[in-house]
């Protein structure tokens, strides 16, 4: 599994208060540096995956907010409208931690 443990902000090298513009600029700079088409180094592709992952998380306001609160960047899912039909007892929803991806 690829390691995605790094903090999205530090992967992109931006402060937690960075604006969308700053995030985008940082992303493009890193993309030019690490994209496997241009950088044939052994770590480039893995690094690019991290960068893309971090950018995907932080460039979407909703996902960024989710990440800021919970520390995970899982894709958002649509709220269930059939929760009453769940059959098995559910563990209570608590604050999730970052999935080790």
């Amino acid at each position, binding site marked *: 599994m690829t390691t995605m443990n790094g903090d999205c902000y530090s992967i992109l090298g931006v402060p937690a208060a960075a604006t969308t513009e700053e995030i985008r600029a940082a992303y493009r700079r890193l*993309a030019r540096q690490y994209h*496997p088409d241009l950088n044939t180094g052994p770590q480039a*592709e893995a690094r690019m995956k991290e960068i*893309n992952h971090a950018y995907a998380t932080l460039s979407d306001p909703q996902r960024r907010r989710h990440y800021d609160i919970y520390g995970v960047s*899982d894709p958002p899912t649509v709220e269930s409208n059939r*929760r009453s039909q769940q*059959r098995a007892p559910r563990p209570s929803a*608590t604050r999730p*931690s970052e*999935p080790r991806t």
Partner: protein
Amino acid sequence: MAVPFPELDGDALESNRRPESPEDHGFNEEGIPILPDIPTGAHHEASSGGLFFSPDDTESRQLPPSPPPLPENTGSSLDPPEYDLSSEEDVGPVVGIDLGTTFSCVAVWEGGRPCVIANNMGNRTTPSWASFHSDNVFVGEAARAKASRNPQCAVYDAKRVIGRKWSDTSVQESLRLWPFSLAEHRGNCAFQIGSQLYTPEEVSAYVLAKMKHAAEDYLGRKIKKAVVTVPAYFNDAQRQATLDAATIADLEVARIINEPTAAALAYGLEKTEGDDSLQTLLVYDLGGGTLDVTILVLDGGVFEVKSTSGDTNLGGQDFDNKLVEHFLPEVKAQCGVDITDNKAKAMKKLRDACQVLKHNLSHSETATIEVDALINGKDFDSSLSREKFVEITHSLLERCLKPVKQALQDARMSADEIDEAVLIGGSTRIVRVQQLLEEMFPGKKLSKKINPDEAVAMGAAIQGANLSRAYETKDPRLVGITLMDVTPLSLGIELASGKMSTIIPRNTTIPYSHTRVYKNNEDYQTKAIVEVFEGEEKYTKNNRLLGKFTLPGLPPKRRGQVQIPISFTVDANGVLEVVACVSGEEGTTKRLVIQKDKGLLTEDDIQRKAKILAKWERKCRAEKLN
């Protein structure tokens, strides 16, 4: 905002949490990915419809021996290669090939710019036609010329059936209007000429070989590598089939890139020189058979695709079809014969005339259609106004903006955030299509700066040069050009409920990797089936199965107590790798690479057809044919 994720609802249960933290009780009640248990059966059957990955499909497919019998004298005298390779290392330039539905185009990076290569007829685009005869195969203009005498021997539109199932509604709908016959071959499509069957891969291979010839003649050296373009909205099977076609034509594909992205590269390269400002482009590519819409941001050499959408079955040919249908009753009235009834020659004449009429309507308010001796020596003539044309093609025009709206929604953008709409593909010359786009983007100019027929090949050549190292070090114009492409379709696995759990949503920039944690669905379940799908539908049975594997070694625990992290990784080439393991259990890791070499054809098929094609190429070279 767009919700590119399928809804996961309550009857598939459990939470989604990290493996090594049992104290974290699931956070994602609605997000519940659970693996289907092994013996469940029913939902697996449901999904078996669209597989191309199953043993059934990949087993050797016994096409009747398809080679047109070539004369036996293709022996040693023709064998020596025409072009010397200076060394093994030197693979030559990477050409860019736009393999189109109706026309193909080849370009190469030369003298600091992409340069379109004319074929042996002096044309910069080549009809994507092949005509099969007992003594030879003709491609391009030659094939189209042969078609007027032997319409049933000449095939085109391979791109509309490549990688598609026979049962595909779009295939079935088009059948009636093709002058050639298409047959079912083990669930897929094949062109039938006499008793011979030709797969769409093979037909495309002939076209690719022809494009390769043109490039070899121009450059005076052997071409081994190419960047080949496909519609952005092509699914994995269609991309794979295109790769197989290239292999048959003895071309190594350096990269498959999306047509609108390629066009944007060509456009952007001209544009960005000395201009580092950020620009948002919408590329609208309406070709002979497909519509693609891509939104991308250009920022100092970085081409970041934001979203892509399309309709793989909407293009100029559909407009032709509508015209043909429109004129058929009139033909019957004037000539007294129903020409749909096995009158391939007449149908071809009518279709060609309709095409001319359509072209004329792009510069005139009304146009006439005249066919001499359409059938039984009777002439046919009529006329059509633009207004009537819009009326006839109403249902098609309605579909023209749908992908634009979808792409905007996916990119979370509004129409006024688009700086420029770039028109690509011959069918964007249709006046009404341009009007629709002008209405969609009021006050924005529609850019026709680049040749709509050549932009895609030029972009492919740019990417080809970018990927070939020799050029990268040489050409300053290419420094910093980075293409950030996206996955066109969502990728995920099937849950026990039969629903799709998306792991990588569509329009995710690649390379990318993501892991989600799933749980066992039943008490004491020992194995889990991981079925990988692509598509946007909520239920996997409506999506396409890419592959599956079984994960054994689940410890006997109650439902929901076993954690199974599944990670999806897509590399820069768009190849998907799936890795699953059982959390805390050694040696349970299972890996599945959705092979880029698992198309509809088997390795044997490809090798066999490649040999036939190589022989054909030598023959063409020796006898100066095609």
